[in-house]
């Protein structure tokens, strides 16, 4: 049984070794001409400005949380839709319970003003 995993072990060793090899080759043979520009932090090629700890709108995080909530709902919908006929009425009721629980969260978020972004 463990013999079946040998190819995977070989693959892991090869992949790790290759990564080290490539970095080492670049390190050994690559030319090095440091300038002040190159020493700066990388900001998508733009010239960096200001400190790295600026305030940013927390809305993004709220959007992300809500996205996860309703995205996962869809993840559960898909397999349910595929085996809908086999599950029958039982599956339907299960799904309704699931959606009602999510709906409670949705109404809560709504009334708390989570969707008012201005």
């Amino acid at each position, binding site marked *: 049984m463990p013999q079946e995993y040998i190819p995977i072990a070989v693959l892991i060793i090869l992949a790790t070794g290759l990564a080290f090899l490539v970095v080492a080759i670049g390190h050994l043979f690559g030319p090095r001409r440091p300038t002040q520009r190159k020493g700066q932090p990388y900001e998508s090629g733009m010239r960096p400005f200001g400190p790295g700890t600026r305030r940013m709108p927390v809305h993004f995080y709220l959007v992300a949380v809500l996205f996860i909530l309703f995205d996962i709902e869809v993840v559960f919908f898909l397999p349910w839709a595929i085996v809908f006929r086999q599950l029958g009425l039982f599956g339907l009721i299960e799904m309704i319970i699931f959606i009602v629980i999510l709906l*409670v969260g949705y109404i809560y978020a709504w009334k708390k003003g989570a969707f008012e972004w201005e």
Partner: protein
Amino acid sequence: MNLSNASASLNAILPLVVVILWACALLLVDLFITKERKGLTALLAAIGMLASLIITLARLDLEAVVFNGMVTVDGFSNFLTVLFLGSGIVAVALSYDYLKRMGLEKGEYYVLLLFTVSGMMLMAVASDLIVVFLALELLSIPLYVLAGIATPRLDSEESSLKYFLLGSFSTGIVVYGIALVFGATGTTSLAGIVDAITAGSAGMGLLVAGAAMLLIGLGFKVALVPFHMWTPDVYQGAPSSVTAFMAIGAKAAGFAAILRIFIQAFPALSVDLTPVLWVLAALTMILGNVVAIAQRNIKRLLAYSSIANAGYILLALVPYGQSDVAADSVASALFYLLAYAFTSFTAWSVVIALEQVEGKGLELEDYAGLSRRYPILALTMTVAMLSFTGVPPTLGFLGKFYVFRTLLEGGFPGLAVIGVVTSLISAYYYLRVVVYMYMREGEPQAIRDPWLYIAATASAICLVVLGIFSQPLFAWASQAMLH
């Protein structure tokens, strides 16, 4: 699974369903309750748990294996369900006035409390490792939020973050343990694991590793040494009413999982695990009690005391592999949890009565002279401290007595000696609180809130009265067998 099957299953866990539905409804109802009337939310939360408690008490001898064997309702789960619901109701009584004083009145507090109680109740009935994991998450995540509910107070945020990081880390270890057990036996059901072991088809090395991971992960939750590091900081930073509940509910739920998993599924591993449990219990009792001596802050002191108590509960589990002791093992652990819950609530309600805004009123010096100005509070605190120490005729004494008896039956006199000696050490810091209250001069400040006083005096009276008439309680715990 079909519909009639499902309704029978839901009927078996009716108390749990009631709490979850009630929590969802309360979340919506609370949106329409104004900030001045949050007492209504507190009342509704207590009513929900009371309804669930009445249902549980009405059918205490219910036994059922439902949801395709993933859930087992038996005496063990009924005992713990009563304990969790009782703790939840007392926690509401402790919280209401405290939250108002600290300016923390949020309806979500009570909703989160209901959700975490539902997680604990699920833990009590879980007989499949996947359900254990689900219950662990359901009880932990609301507790992380509750610990940080005093935001933007920094210590509360720190407490919440530390609890979250270490808690999710330990949950990860539990999941890894479940994966290893599944790898070894091909099942996550506790009954299935036993079948695989007796059939000899389980990979024993992998199984021991998985069981050890489960022990580590759950050991984090109940604060066993050396997995206790988070406890003092989290207990100190979280609002006191949350800490009071956390100290009892989370610990009891963690031990519910440990007891059921180890006694039901892993008795065959006791040869490998008993030495580990021995060392863990000894370390937990020694470190908890010795470090508590150095504490001047009452919340940190009780945090170390809760670590030490986890050690005493673990004592009951050390001889779990011997089939003739297993019944006593469960009974004495459950009885100790009950005694610990009463004692802890008594102590915490006095702490809550003395706490002032900005985290003041929590040092030992603030208890000086308490007996003169607030004799009832001083007396209840004294009863709690005596019960923690294990002085007869309190419940704490009987809790320790039964645990040590189980240990001696199992043949571990050395560990019992360590337990007795550490109990003696603990007398020093518990009785120091009493000395401060009765023999030092001071100007203590405390509030007079009826609910808090009722909770404190009622549980103190229970400590003594139930301590004297403990036989029915212990008989109940003895019937709470695992199936």
